[in-house]
């Protein structure tokens, strides 16, 4: 049984022409490759066009293949909550050039930590991201990007050096409670949540 191609492919091709490099079906899911230059436009189009409405960004991740010739792929998994449709969009990045793609943080705020994770693990920079720092490894981590295929499993440094650097780290210098505090985000919360928080249901906020 061959799964049907996502109905988003044809209109996307009509709109972006050659920027849609190819599409394929894998395990029933449609995967669309778009060019690096137009990726942000294509994703914005998929999000905002009536009939597409991919309003939810499920995940951003990346794949590095063992073959050094093969490009590194940044993967966007989209979901339209209203239409109950999924779509996978990939952007292939040539490994001989700087790994850079435009951030989609301005389209989906949830991309913030997802893109930080891709940056942390693969070293892909997202232009336009408001706060592109490491997120899983600590800020001063100096061994590189662990999920790249050319990264040795045990890391580059000796165990003693890794232990020394880890012990020298000051966790409080990079991760403050304020960073995780929703007090800062109070103004941006939905109204009903603001009311509940102001009543003190979850502790004292303000």
């Amino acid at each position, binding site marked *: 049984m061959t799964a049907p191609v996502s109905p988003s492919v044809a209109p996307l091709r009509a709109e972006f022409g050659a920027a849609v490099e190819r599409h394929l079906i894998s395990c029933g899911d449609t995967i669309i490759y778009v060019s690096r230059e137009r990726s942000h436009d294509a994703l914005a189009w998929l999000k905002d066009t009536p009939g597409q409405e991919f309003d939810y960004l499920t995940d951003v991740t990346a794949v590095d293949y063992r073959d050094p010739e093969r490009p590194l792929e940044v993967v966007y998994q989209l979901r339209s909550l209203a239409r109950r449709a999924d779509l996978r969009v990939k952007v292939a990045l040539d490994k001989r050039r700087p790994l850079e793609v435009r951030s989609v943080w301005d389209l989906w705020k949830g991309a913030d930590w997802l893109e930080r994770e891709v940056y942390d693990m693969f070293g892909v920079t997202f232009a336009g991201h408001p706060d592109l720092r490491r997120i899983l*490894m*600590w800020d001063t981590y100096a*061994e590189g990007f*662990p999920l790249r*295929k*050319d*990264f*040795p*499993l*045990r*890391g580059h440094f*000796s*165990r*003693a*050096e*890794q*232990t*020394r*650097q*880890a*012990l*020298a*780290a*000051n*966790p409080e210098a990079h991760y403050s409670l304020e960073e995780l505090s929703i007090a800062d985000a109070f103004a941006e919360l939905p109204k009903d949540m603001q009311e509940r928080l102001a009543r003190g249901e979850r502790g004292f906020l303000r």
Partner: protein
Amino acid sequence: MGLINPAAASEAGERTVVSEASPNFVTTTLDFLTNWARSNSLWPMPFGTACCAIEYMATAASRFDIARFGMERQSFSPRQADVFICAGRVPFKLAPVLRRIWDQMPQPKWCISMGACASTGNVFDNYTIVQGIDTLMPVDVYVPGCPPRPEGLIYGITLLQKKIRGESIVDEQLRQEQLVGPSGLFLPPERVDELSEPFGNSVHQTRSSS
């Protein structure tokens, strides 16, 4: 756990004597008395980082009940704790936290490394896991298993109690802090490398693919 219980008395050897004139008098050694008190009222500082912590919780709960060994008070503050129990794998990112908690505990203190991860890094011989917490702090008892059953941990705890009963309060070395030195480690770097050496199947992993 009375002093005149024959088992305890024999542990203290000939030196514990119940007065013949009155049972209210006992003479014994200070070491025996101190160790008896210390070993039977250990306050654990549980540091559960992964799946082993689930087994630790079972050990602390009613069925296995480590309160029977004088450990009814789980100390979630390192400053009021005697035994550091690391239950689970420790990533390098957590290493400074672990070390700081250990440093915050006052003497006398002991450390139990619970499970294969805390003791050796287990199968996680990779860039992110500390290859045994003995590269970060001194460890008294290693409990093997993935995870160890509560019985295993209890055995480890009784081993620690046994060890404590063999200590002497005049031996100052026992209570000396082993701080992180100028090298940034508490052991010589070669020792850390040696402790972190791969073993078993893990020897066959590629050290580098580049």
